[in-house]
């Protein structure tokens, strides 16, 4: 890879962001811990009967994972804004959408992937029937990148605000409702013994759309926020 090319810039950005997360790996575990706590609270509130828990398991895990990701989304551009490297990204000759796509990829790798790995454990805590687990994992694998992508657009709009946490939640949640409906819907269908491929395909179609459009939208939003 020749230095100065766009692919070299993307590779450098990926390496830098992953290294930054690795240097502060304690912080990266917070969303995991949050998801476990949320899931663990449900049996306390609803009682330990496995029939009740099994019925709400997929939905609960979905909500916990989405909230945990939302928690970490707030910091997506924060350190870059503080040390000025975000402005350098905007000023760089490489396409901003591609660079932001790399940052979203890092966010997904460091937040959603650990949550996905932990999802079987969460499923066990809530007594999710074993045959539903692959559907849950597939639905989560399609939903979490959607949240990272749509979230990045909203974060780009709120970048530079001192207290953006609550506002960010307000911006992201209405946009992510369909993902939750389709994702949890696929799991519920699988649990009731119905066909579950249609919602998963819808999610995949939406993800393809978001992969193309969301980085462009995030780049446009970032340019508005930084003027």
């Amino acid at each position, binding site marked *: 890879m020749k230095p100065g090319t766009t692919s070299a810039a993307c590779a450098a950005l990926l390496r830098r962001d992953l290294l930054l997360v690795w240097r502060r790996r304690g912080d990266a575990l917070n969303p995991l811990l949050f998801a476990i706590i949320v899931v663990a609270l449900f049996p306390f509130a609803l009682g330990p009967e496995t029939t009740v828990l099994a019925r709400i398991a997929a939905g609960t895990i979905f909500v916990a994972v989405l909230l945990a990701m939302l928690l970490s989304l707030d910091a997506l551009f924060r350190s870059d804004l503080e040390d000025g490297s975000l402005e350098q990204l905007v000023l760089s000759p490489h396409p901003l959408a591609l660079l932001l796509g790399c940052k979203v990829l890092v966010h997904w790798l460091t937040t959603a992937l650990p949550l996905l790995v932990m999802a079987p454990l969460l499923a066990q805590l809530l007594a999710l029937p074993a045959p539903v687990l692959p559907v849950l994992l597939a639905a989560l694998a399609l939903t979490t990148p959607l949240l990272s992508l749509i979230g990045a657009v909203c974060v780009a*709009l709120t970048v530079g605000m001192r207290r*953006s946490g609550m506002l960010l939640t*307000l*911006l992201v949640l209405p*946009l992510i409702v369909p993902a939750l409906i389709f994702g949890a*819907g696929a799991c519920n269908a699988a649990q009731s013994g119905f066909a579950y491929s249609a919602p998963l395909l*819808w999610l995949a179609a939406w993800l393809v759309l978001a992969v193309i459009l969301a980085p462009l939208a995030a780049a446009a939003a970032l340019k*508005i926020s930084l*003027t």
Partner: protein
Amino acid sequence: MNPLVLWFHKLGSPPYFYRFGGRWIPWLYALALVAGAAGFYGALFTAPADYQQGDSFRIMYVHVPCAWMGLFAYAFMAANGFVGLVWHIKLSETMAMASAPIGAAFTFITLVTGSLWGKPTWGTWWTWDARLTSELVLLFLYFGVIGLYHAIEDRRQAARAAAFLALVGIVNLPIVHYSVIWWNTLHQGQTVSLVGPSKIAPDMLWPLLVLAFATHVYFFASLLARTRVALLELESGKEWVRALLPAAETSHD
């Protein structure tokens, strides 16, 4: 230049728009009041009671026009936001942001009247039906736009960011709508349509159309009033505002 095009270009100038709005607002409010009174007279007195729902169906005359206006205001906001973002027209940005609270209010009224209507007909205040849910999501989208607009210090940057969010929302709105339809449906189907015959008696239909007209006129009156105030704030340093409000300036010093 064509006089109509010339007028349209002139309208983009804040001082011209300010005077234009000032002339039209009283007439629009009066028209909305008259049309609203006529519509409500028809809705409450001349329209016959529904054979199935009795008198409770009359809530429709508030509910349906407000639901239309909630969507119309969002489309209006997004269209103006698009114009503002692409051509950097200050007036469009201001109008987009002025229509957000009105649309949110209409959406809120839709949800409240819908739940009042739901109690006698469905036996419940709230149900997670497709249309109710997408209306709720619409309200949250409005709240997001308004919240973002008020969270950013610089007014023009805030308007541009919020307008962008409105555009993201309009891409997403059909997805939300169809996903919740797929998810669950209890709400009655469409009974009024622009193309083809409506599935509603003419006695019941005309007050609805008159009220829909009244809410549209009210929307534009309220929009003009809000935009005028926002323009005064935005342009407070400019010559025309100083000439207009000499008293306010002396009190500031």
